[in-house]
C-alpha cells in the first residue's frame, strides 16, 4: 500500500495532467449560457493546473539523483516500469511549460478561426501527459504507451482546423507516417524482448529483480553480464535490429534525419499553436526516451555500433536541418527545419550521455538545452500568432520586412529568439550549445562538436535573414501590422523572450552549483592524469575518491 502511494507520488505529474485533461473535458460539456461562460475559463484552468503540476513535479522527486547509473538500483515503481528521478521530473516541468505556453498563445487564434472548442485544451493536456509518461518510463512498453498517448492526441490536434485543407493534409500525413513509426517502435520492443530474454536464459543470468525483458535496467544488466561472459548481447543481430527499429520510432518523433521529411509539411499545415506544441513537446518526450535508452546501451561495453549510428544520425541531422533551412521562405517551414537542426544538437548530448566520463554533464546539458529551446522556439511561434490577424498569419519571411518600425517590441522579441536559436552569446541559446558541445568534447567527440559548430555558422545565416528583414528593410504596404490585439500570444512571446534573455545572463537559478559535477570533472581529470603519469594500478587498490564514477583507472 505504502509503495503504491510512493509510486503515485513519484509519477504525480503525468497523473495530475491526465486528470486535469479529463476535468477540462467534463467542464466542456453542456449547453446554454452557463456552459459558454464555463468554457471561456478553460484556458485559465488548464494553465493554472499546469503551473500546479509543474510545482508538484518539481518537489515530488527532490533529493533523488539526476539519473542513476547503470548497475545501480533506481527508485522505480509499478513493477519497475516507472522511474522516479530528477531527470524525469525536470522533463515534466519543461513539458508543463510547453503546454502552458501553447495554451496561452492559442486563445485569440482559435477564436478567430472559429475552432475554439474545449477539446483543444484537453487534447493538449493528454498529449502532455503522454510525453511525461515517456520521460519517466523505465520500460520500453511504457515508452510505447506514452508515445501513443502523445501521438494520438497530436494527430487530432494537427487536424483541428477541420475546414482548412492544409490542416487536414498535415493531420493525415502525420497520422500515416506516425503510425508506421509507432509500429517500428513496437516491433523493435518485441525483438528486444526476445533478444534479451534469449540471452538471459542461455547464459543463465540471474536477474536482480523479476521484470520484463524490456525494462531498461534489465537490458542494461544483461548487456553487461553477457559481455562479461563473452557472448555480448550487443552483437546479437536480433538485438541490434530491435534497437535500430527503436531508433526509427523515436527518431521519427524527434524529427531526426532521415526520418524528418514529414516535419516541414506537418508543421506548416497544423494550426500554429499545435505546431509550437509539437515542435517542443513531442521532441522532449522522444528525447527523454532516447537519453534513457542510450544511457543504458552506451554505458555497457561493446556498444560501439550504436555509437557510430548515433554519431551519423546526429551529424546528418545537424547538417541537413541547417542546410535546408537556408532556402526556406516560409517562417513556419524555416522554424521546422531549424527544429530539426536543434534535434541534431541535442542528439550530440544524447551521444555524450553514453560515455562514462561525460554522462552526468551530458544529462544536464540536454535538460538545459531542451529548457532553453522550449522558450526560444515556442516564443518564435507565439510571435507569429501574435502578429497574425483575423485568423490569417504572416508566414512568408518577406512579410516581416520593416517590422521594427511598426511593432518594435515584437521585432525585439523576435531578434532575441533568433539570436538565441543561432547561439549568439547574450541569449541563453549560446550557453545551451556550449554546454552540449562541451559534454561532447568531454566524451571524446571533438569532431562531432566541430561539425556542430560549423553548421551553427550556417544557422547564423538564416536566423539573421529574419533580423535583416525586420530591421534593415522598409515595411511593405501589403502587410498590415498596425494595431493588433495581441492576446495571450503576446504575453507568451514576451515572457519567453524575457526568460531567454534572463537565463542567458543568469543561468544559475536553472542549473545551480552541483557538487556532484565537480567531483565528476575532477575525477575524470585525476583519472587522465594518472593514466599519463602512472602505470595501471594492481587490482584491488581502490582508486582515488571517486564516489560518482565506478570506472577503474586502467579501463
Amino acid at each position, binding site marked *: 500500500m505504502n509503495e503504491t502511494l510512493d509510486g503515485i507520488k513519484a509519477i504525480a505529474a503525468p497523473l495530475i495532467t491526465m486528470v486535469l485533461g479529463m476535468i477540462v473535458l467534463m467542464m466542456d460539456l453542456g449547453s446554454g449560457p452557463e456552459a459558454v461562460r464555463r468554457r471561456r475559463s478553460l484556458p485559465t484552468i488548464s494553465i493554472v493546473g499546469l503551473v500546479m503540476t509543474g510545482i508538484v513535479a518539481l518537489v515530488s522527486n527532490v533529493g533523488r539523483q539526476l539519473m542513476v547509473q547503470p548497475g545501480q538500483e533506481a527508485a522505480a515503481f509499478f513493477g519497475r516500469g516507472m522511474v522516479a528521478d530528477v531527470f524525469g521530473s525536470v522533463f515534466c516541468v519543461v513539458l508543463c511549460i510547453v503546454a502552458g505556453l501553447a495554451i496561452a498563445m492559442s486563445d485569440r487564434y482559435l477564436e478567430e478561426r472559429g475552432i475554439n472548442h474545449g477539446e483543444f485544451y484537453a487534447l493538449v493536456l493528454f498529449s502532455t501527459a503522454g510525453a511525461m509518461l515517456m520521460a519517466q518510463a523505465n520500460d520500453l512498453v511504457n515508452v510505447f504507451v506514452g508515445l501513443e498517448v502523445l501521438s494520438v492526441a497530436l494527430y487530432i490536434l494537427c487536424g483541428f482546423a477541420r475546414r482548412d485543407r492544409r490542416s487536414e493534409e498535415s493531420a493525415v500525413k502525420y497520422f500515416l507516417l506516425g503510425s508506421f513509426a509507432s509500429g517500428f517502435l513496437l516491433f523493435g520492443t518485441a525483438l528486444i524482448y526476445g533478444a534479451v530474454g534469449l540471452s538471459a536464459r542461455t547464459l543463465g543470468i540471474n536477474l536482480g529483480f523479476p521484470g520484463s525483458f524490456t525494462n531498461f535496467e534489465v537490458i542494461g544488466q544483461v548487456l553487461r553480464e553477457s559481455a562479461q561472459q563473452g557472448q555480448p548481447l550487443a552483437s546479437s543481430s536480433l538485438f541490434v535490429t530491435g534497437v535500430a527499429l527503436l531508433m526509427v520510432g523515436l527518431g521519427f518523433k524527434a524529427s531526426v534525419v532521415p526520418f524528418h521529411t514529414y516535419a516541414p509539411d506537418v508543421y506548416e499545415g497544423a494550426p500554429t499553436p499545435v505546431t509550437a506544441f509539437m515542435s517542443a513537446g513531442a521532441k522532449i518526450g522522444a528525447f527523454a526516451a532516447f537519453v534513457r535508452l542510450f544511457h543504458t546501451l552506451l554505458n555497457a561495453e561493446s556498444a560501439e555500433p550504436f555509437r557510430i549510428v548515433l554519431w551519423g544520425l546526429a551529424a546528418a541531422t545537424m547538417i541537413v536541418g541547417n542546410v535546408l533551412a537556408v532556402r526556406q521562405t516560409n517562417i513556419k517551414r524555416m522554424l521546422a527545419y531549424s527544429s530539426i537542426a536543434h534535434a541534431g544538437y541535442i542528439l550530440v548530448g544524447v551521444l555524450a550521455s553514453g560515455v562514462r566520463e561525460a554522462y552526468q554533464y551530458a544529462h544536464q546539458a540536454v535538460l538545459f538545452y531542451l529548457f532553453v529551446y522550449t522558450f526560444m522556439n515556442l516564443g518564435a511561434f507565439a510571435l507569429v500568432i501574435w502578429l497574425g490577424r483575423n485568423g490569417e498569419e504572416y508566414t512568408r519571411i518577406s512579410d516581416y520586412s520593416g517590422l521594427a518600425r511598426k511593432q518594435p517590441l515584437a521585432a525585439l522579441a523576435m531578434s532575441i529568439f533568433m539570436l538565441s536559436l543561432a547561439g549568439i552569446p547574450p541569449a541563453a541559446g549560446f550557453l545551451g550549445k556550449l554546454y552540449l558541445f562541451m559534454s561532447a568534447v568531454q566524451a571524446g567527440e571533438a569532431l562531432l562538436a566541430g561539425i556542430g559548430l560549423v553548421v551553427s555558422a550556417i544557422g547564423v545565416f538564416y536566423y539573421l535573414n529574419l533580423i535583416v528583414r525586420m*530591421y534593415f528593410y522598409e515595411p511593405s504596404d501589403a502587410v498590415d501590422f498596425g494595431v493588433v490585439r495581441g492576446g495571450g500570444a503576446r504575453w507568451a512571446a514576451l515572457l519567453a523572450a524575457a526568460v531567454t534573455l534572463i537565463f542567458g545572463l543568469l543561468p544559475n537559478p536553472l542549473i545551480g552549483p552541483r557538487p556532484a559535477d565537480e567531483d565528476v570533472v575532477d575525477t575524470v581529470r585525476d583519472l587522465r592524469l594518472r593514466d599519463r603519469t602512472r602505470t595501471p594500478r594492481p587490482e584491488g587498490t581502490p582508486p582515488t575518491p571517486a564516489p560518482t564514477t565506478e570506472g577503474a583507472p586502467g579501463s
Partner: protein
Amino acid sequence: MLMTLLLILPVLFALACGFAPARQARSVALLGAMVTFAVSIFTLVGFSGSAGGPVYQLVEQRPWFPALKIGINLGADGPGLLMIVLTAFLTVAVVWYSYEKVTFREKEYYALLLALDATVIGAFSALDLVLFYIFFEACLVPAYFLIGIWGGRDRVRAATKFFVYTVVGSLVMLLSIIALYIHAGTFDITEIQDVLTRKPLPPEMGLFIFLGFAVAFAVKTGLFPFHTWLPDAYAEAPAAVTVLLSGAMAKLGTFGFYRFGVLLLPDAAHTAAPLMLTLGVLSILFGGLVAAMQRDMRRVLAYSSISHLGFVVVGLFAGTKPGISGAVLQMVNHGITSGMLFLIAGMIYARIGSTHLRALGGLWEQTPLLGRLLLIATLSSVGLPLTNSFVGEFLILLGAYQNYPFFAAVATTGVIWSAIYMLVLFRKAMYGAPVRPAVRRMLDLTTNEISLLGAFTVLIFLLGIQPRILLHSADASVDAAVAGVTEAVERASRPPTLMQRPRRRPPQTEPATAAPPATAAPPATPSPTESTESTETTESTQPTQPTQPTEGRGP
C-alpha cells in the same frame, strides 16, 4: 569594483537612452560615455604596471555559472587597460561626433553605441575564457545593427558579411576554448596559466588550440586572407561606427593574439611565429598595395587599417621586448590615428555626400582647417617622427629585426607604401582648385568638430613625444610575455634529453642584458633631426649584436 563599474555604467546609460525622449538621448549618451571614460582614467591612474609587479590587477571574481565553472572574472593587465581607456575615449569621441549628424532613430543609435562600448570593454577586461567569448561575440550584435540601420547604400550586405565572417571565426575559437578547458579544468585565465606551467600542453595540441584562436583573431583583426569583410564594413558603416570598429573592435583581434597567443600559449606562439609573421607581412604589403589602388577615401583608410594592424601582428610575434611593447603602443596609436582619419572622412561625407576621390579636390583652399587637421593625421599615419605612429612602428621593426631580420626587412617596405597611398590620398583630396560644385559649397569645421579633432591632435603629439606614459603601464605584462616566449624558445631548442641543463643559463641572462638598451630606445628615438632609415640602422645594430646567438639557436 572599478572593472564592474566600467561594464555596468555604459549598459545603464544605454537603457537610459532607450527611455529618454528622442532629443535627449544624445545628451544622456554623451554623459554616459564621459562617465565611463572618467572611470577608466581613474582606473589607469590607480594601476601600477611597472616591471616586476603582478600581471593582472584589479581582479574581481564572482561565480556566474558554477555548473560549467564559468565565473565573472574581470581584471586587466597593462595592455588590456590601455585598450579599455582607448575604447572609452573613442566612444566619447563618436558620441560627440554623432551629435548633429545622426537624425533618425536616435534613441536606438545611442543605446547601441553604448552597448558596443560596454561589450568591447567587457572583452578587454574578461579574465574568463567563456566570458571573453561571450563579450567577443556580443559586441557583434550592436555593431551589426549599427551598420545595418545607419550605414551607407550597401549596408545590409556589408553588415551580414561582417557578422557571418566574424561569427564563423569565433566558433572555431570556441572549440579551442573547450579544448583548453578539458586540459586545464577551468576557464579562469590566470588559473589556466598556472596549470599550463605545471602541466604543459602537448605541442601539437597547443598548436591546434593556438590556431583555433588565431582564426578568430585574424578575422577580427582583418589579417590578409581573412580580411574580405573589412573594407565593406568600414566603408558602409556610419563614420562613428567605423571609428569604433577599427579603433576598438579590431584591437580585440590583436589584443587576443597578445593575451591568448603570446601570453597564454607562448610555445605555440613561438612555433607558429613564422606563419603569423608571414600573415602580418602579407597584410602590410597587401593592405598597402590595395590601398594605393583605391579611389574612395574610406576604402583607402580601410585597407591602410589592414596594413597597420599587420605591423602590430609582426611586433607581437617577434618575441622580443621592443617588438611586443611597440605592438601594444601601436594598438593605441592606430586607434587614435585611424579614428581621427575616419572621423574626418565622415565629416567630408556629411558635407558633400561622398568620399570618392574624384568628387574631392581643392579642400585645402576651401576648408583650410579641415585640411590642416587631415595633414596632421596623414603624417601620423605615415609614421613621421614626432607623431605617435613613428615610435610604435619603429619599435616593432626593431624588435622584429632582432629575431627575424628577413621579415623585418620586408615589413619596412610597408612604410613606403603607407607614404605612397596616404600622400596620394592627401594630394587628390586637398590640392588643386575646388572645381566641383559640391566642394565649392562646402563649409569648414564647426567648433564642435574642431574641439573633437583637436583632442586627437593633442594625443598624436603627446604620444609621439612621450610614449613612456603608455609603455610604462604595459611593462609588467610585456615582461611576462617576453619571459614566456624566451622560455618557449629555449624549450624548443633544447633536445628532449636532460643532458643540456647548463646551457639554459646563457640565453636567460642574455635577453636581460639586451633589454635595457631596447627599453631605453623609445625616449631617445623621436629625435627630429634623424631620418627614419638612419635611426634604424644605427640604433638597431646595437641590441641585435648580443642576441644574435639566441636567434641562431632559436629555430
